[in-house]
């Protein structure tokens, strides 16, 4: 990630061992890309008999069926809607708070900002169970509000910490200068501050949206049977669909957002920003 040109003399050895890097690369390529490539091939397979390394009969016939499936279409629509609602709600709740954390001084500020670590400090599924027990009593199981609320939990930390760092990074001198020439604070915010933090805000929103889109555990626990998001449909396809191609095709289709996010993240965020979301 961050590799400054100067490398300690003693450690130059590592760089001088090209085979070490090549071994690491091959191993990672096998472990990381192997399963992905395998699924990719499955999406274009009709039959794949053991022990052939490649599909024995290729076919794209299942693509048609996959996207014509009512459950996949409904799951996709449900996921898009719920993710939009969660992201929007999270933004409304968290972004003003991020601004406050970055710009205002009040007692307990640091403590309160750090308190959001609590979202990471519980074993996730245990936490979801305790939430589900309450939702059960409130009859929120199997409802969209129930799914939205449980998925909101996951978004807090990223939606507060990343924008907080962004607001804090804005050079105050620019704002002061604008204020000095008579611009209203609102105008300064919209015309000076916002454009400067926009990339980081967009990244936080995108991470939240995609993270929510793929969120499985909470949706499975609180949503079924009435609310089925795409990952929940996917679980059903993986578990109980005799035609394995449906799952493979859906996986391949779902890579696209993943890869776009990867590219975006590489571009806008430095890797460390994501790490900072986990507390480093």
């Amino acid at each position: 990630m961050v590799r400054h040109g100067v490398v300690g003399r003693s450690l130059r050895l590592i760089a001088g061992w090209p085979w070490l890097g090549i071994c690491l690369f091959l191993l990672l390529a096998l472990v990381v890309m192997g399963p992905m490539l395998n699924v990719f091939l499955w999406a274009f397979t009709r039959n794949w008999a053991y022990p052939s390394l490649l599909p024995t009969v290729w076919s794209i016939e299942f693509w048609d069926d996959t996207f014509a499936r009512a459950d996949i279409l409904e799951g996709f629509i449900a996921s898009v809607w719920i993710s939009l609602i969660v992201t929007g709600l999270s933004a409304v709740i968290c972004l003003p708070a991020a601004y406050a954390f970055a710009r205002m001084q009040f007692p307990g500020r640091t403590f309160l900002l750090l308190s959001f670590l609590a979202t990471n400090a519980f074993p996730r599924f245990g936490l979801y169970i305790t939430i589900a027990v309450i939702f059960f009593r409130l009859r929120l199981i199997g409802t969209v509000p129930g799914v939205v609320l449980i998925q909101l939990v996951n978004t807090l930390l990223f939606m507060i910490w990343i924008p907080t760092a962004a607001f804090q990074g804005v050079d105050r001198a620019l704002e002061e200068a604008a204020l000095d020439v008579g611009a209203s604070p609102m105008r300064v915010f919209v015309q000076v501050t916002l454009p400067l933090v926009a990339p980081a805000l967009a990244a936080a929103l995108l991470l939240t949206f995609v993270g929510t889109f793929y969120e499985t555990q909470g949706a499975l626990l609180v949503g079924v049977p009435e609310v089925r998001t795409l990952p929940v449909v996917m679980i059903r396809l993986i578990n109980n669909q005799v035609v394995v191609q449906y799952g493979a095709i859906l996986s391949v289709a779902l890579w696209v957002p993943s890869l776009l996010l990867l590219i975006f993240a590489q571009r806008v965020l430095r890797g460390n920003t994501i790490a900072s979301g986990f507390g480093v």
Partner: protein
Amino acid sequence: MTVAGSRGTLPEPATYSGRFRIPQSVLGYALILLPLIVMGTLILYPAFLSITDTLTERSPGGSLQVSLADYVEFFNTPLAVRNLAFSLRITAVTVAVLFLAGFPISLYLRFTHGRLGNLIQMLALFPLFVPGIIAAYALIRFIGDNGWLERFLHLLFGYEGFTSPYLRPAGIVVGLAWEGISITVLILTAGLSQIPDSLLETATDVGANRWQAFWRITMPLMKRSVLIVLTLNFLTVFGSFTIPYLLGPASPEMMGPYMRRTFYDANLPSRAQVQAVITFLISAVISLLYVRSVVSQKVEEES
């Protein structure tokens, strides 16, 4: 380009504030109230309620009294104890595997540059952007019986002794390690990047060999990142669901699938609550260590 990525430094207090009529502290509290309420009602309240629920019992007279009956029952159920022990064992193994795999990669990434390093970095980060559900599906096809891996071993090396980890405890470890490698590498590389090259060069200049430099300088400076990575991985793995549900054996189960099954299939929400609280209590020490390491690091940066 903003400095959004500037490593987790805490916001500095505002230097100007005169334009707001409302006292800044009041406004600040007002703005952060909503997320605090969300956190309170969706994290702290459910956790607190579960703890009090499972610790109390309504006596025949109708009054509430403290009772450990639910916990006694849990620890008297052989299956429950077995599942808990199993979860802890899998978690320990996975955390160790992640560290042992992640640390060399991070070291390599820290001290090398160029095309190869870049490719390795991308590969290591890739799983972060693959949803767990797809990872599980892909791994079933890949490591399952007669899967791609077995075919490769069979055709390329004539190796016949392959035993698929799928539906075995090892399957869970493989799956969770696959998912967790990105965060592990991310955090460790971030930690390593904080060690200035100059420090290492100084050390070698005064005659330390590379192992001494590693043990005396790199490791002590990495202590906090290592602690964060170990504790965060513990919490993630211990609280996982999708991978153990799809890749693990029918029995023993990890706490995630076990709780879901108790909640849904057996329709015993109150029993699931006890299981959830037990996972909280068991990981309380780890959570504390995690929060403490992060907080101490932040506070240090702040000052």
